[in-house]
């Protein structure tokens, strides 16, 4: 589904992505983690061409875009538009269009890009709002919605283009803890439906439950990849272990009191300490 080959990108001599290669199957869920500045967001932005890359090859479905010395061929540039419409992107800061209601946000791209009829687009938008649990907020403006509600509308907006792949760039980082769960629930449902998802997140509960594979990035490289439980339990690299320690909650008093899995903190403590995962 997704194939990244020898992808490199630098901003003014600073190597942001250094020869990255990654393959993702259809319906696979990959979670990317890594310290800030490791290039994980840039990787996502290169995939849907918000960022151009210097060298390498990106294939999504049947579309391939190649760059050499920072240049794309004219044919590849024309492909960018098609590629974007097949890749859905969810941003950390939602980026809903503030001058449109929830339903208007969702129908915008189908109507202008796919030239879908207004009536058809609205009908499908309401289905999508129903799916993300916001059927009663169709006519609300983004400023009238909570952060969690806005992010769910943003997911619905991306889904309206019927993408083959969904990219999530820290979708819950800007949200209060009590609002995160609503968004994660939608993402879990999506993964269960077989959506191909590439997710940059610090939500280890999501990674544990949903990720088919985890990727740890540092300094523009993929340092380690593998099944989530393996990486939690026995990371190959010391850097991975250190990083996981920093993003996982410190020792909780309740840890170990309940059965594994009924408390997120407890489970991670267990995973890290190599307990009964």
């Amino acid at each position: 589904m997704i194939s990244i080959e020898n992808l490199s990108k630098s901003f003014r001599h600073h190597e942001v992505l250094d020869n990255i290669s990654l393959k993702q199957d259809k319906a696979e869920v990959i979670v990317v983690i890594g310290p800030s500045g490791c290039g994980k967001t840039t990787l996502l932005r290169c995939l849907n061409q918000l960022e151009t890359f210097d060298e390498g090859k990106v294939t999504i479905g049947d579309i391939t875009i190649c760059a050499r010395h920072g240049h794309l061929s004219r044919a590849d540039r024309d492909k960018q538009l098609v590629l974007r419409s097949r890749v859905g992107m969810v941003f950390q800061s939602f980026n809903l269009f503030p001058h449109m209601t929830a339903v208007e946000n969702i129908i915008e791209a189908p109507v202008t890009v796919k030239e879908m009829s207004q009536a058809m687009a609205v009908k499908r938008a309401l289905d999508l709002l129903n799916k993300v649990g916001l059927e009663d907020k169709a006519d609300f403006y983004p400023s009238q919605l909570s952060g969690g509600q806005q992010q769910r509308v943003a997911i619905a907006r991306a889904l309206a283009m019927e993408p083959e792949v969904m990219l999530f760039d820290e979708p819950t980082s800007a949200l209060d803890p009590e609002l995160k769960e609503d968004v994660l629930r939608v993402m879990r449902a999506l993964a269960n439906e077989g959506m191909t998802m590439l997710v940059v997140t610090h939500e280890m509960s999501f990674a544990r439950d949903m990720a088919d594979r985890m990727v740890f990035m540092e300094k523009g490289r993929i340092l380690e990849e593998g099944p989530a439980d393996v990486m939690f339990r026995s990371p190959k690299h010391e850097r991975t272990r250190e990083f996981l320690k920093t993003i996982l909650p410190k020792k909780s008093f309740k840890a170990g009191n309940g059965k594994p899995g009924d408390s997120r903190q407890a489970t991670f403590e267990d995973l890290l300490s190599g307990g009964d995962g």
Partner: protein
Amino acid sequence: MALSFLPAGVSADDTPCATIQEVEARGVLRWGADAEGGAPYVFPDPRNPKRYIGFEVDIARALAGRLGVRPQMVQNSWDGLVSALDRGSFDIVLNGLEITPEHLGQIAMSRPYYAYTQQIVVRKGDGSMRRVEDLKGLRVGVLSASVAQRILEGMGGVDVRVYPGNVETCRDLKNKRIDASLMDLPIALHYAKPDPALDFAGKPFAVGYYGVGVRKKDTKLLEAVDRAIAALLASGELKRIYLKWGLWDADQERRLRRYSPVEPPKEGNVSTLREWRTFLPLLLEGAVVTVEISFLSMALAIALGLALALAKLFGVTPVRWASTAYIEVFRGTPLLIQLYMIYYGLPNLGIRLSSFEAAVMGLGLNYAAYEAENYRAGIQAIPEGQMEAALSLGMTRWQALRRVVLPQAVRIVIPPISNDFIALFKDSSLVSVITMVELTKVYGMLATTTYDYMGLGLMTAAIYLALSYPASLAAKFIERKLRYDFD
């Protein structure tokens, strides 16, 4: 209270001999005149532009000599000479000021120093006009606030075009924007006679007299000026001056000697406020022109400004540079010069716009530069994430701009653009320099004939306010309508 502001011609200081004593003590006679386009009366010497020459410069020197003092010219726009004299900016006016009941209502005037006539000027070979009646139905250029303007307006049926100067009148006559011009004979002799493209039509007519203007209270000064003029006429000095400037004609001496004084009008100042039924409709006619020009030029500015902003933000390098250059040039140079160049300069390149078209173009092109900067600021205020979100949905850059970025930017730019609209509305008064008679020009013309600057000013200001205030209310309404950030 308001009455004390009216230029009454009688100030609190009513000592009859104050000014002549001042002049003698100073040793200098300050005379007011307008040297801009002032040939052959008073104008900068082309060979030494720091020096003024002209037949009135010679007369002023002779006159001051008779009073035993030195002359000193004070530059003042011609329209405002009478009011400036009243205000005390100089001692006398000596600048082709006609002896008319209107002027005598405001100031005192000496015996005449020159008898002038009106001359019809046409393009060479155009022999269809011989008498003033032949001008009916034609476009005729006149100098602003001149006797020629009054004659033609009094006659009716003539499309009178009012010019700020004589150079522009002759130029537009040659450019065929007007069919004829009516001007004082000295002006015609100086500007039109030497021009091979222009010709005099018919005989001069409508004798009138230039006199020296003095404040009404300065009776002693007036007597002294009268005596001096009589002496200059008797000694032949006046004749020598007029011969030197080619202004002498056989009837001149007879006319100056046989002059019988014009009776000053009985009643003093006109109160235009009390007679608003007469004056308000005239002002409103001017207001219609102001509104038409403002709306059309703002529409042009808004459309062109958007194109410039998009070119500057998203264009390829040469387009970006061109847009930046346009904005800097039009913002960085005076609107007045742009208007002059569009109206009087472009015909040299074969582009001949009517004064209305030139007014809309000039204001529109100028304000487009400001609107471009408003748009640019508005577009840049929209977070980058908006464009990215739209692109990530597969929209093209243009679709993203049109559907996502611009609708948000519009709301941001409404306050500064409505500000500019109100500024443009007032700047539109500048187009009077290219013969458009709009609200401020009507005010100026009425004020220089009635001298009721205050009453007419209040009416004119009220009209401007009545037009601009609803505009700002409408802007607020639209801004509220477009609101989407509900708390």
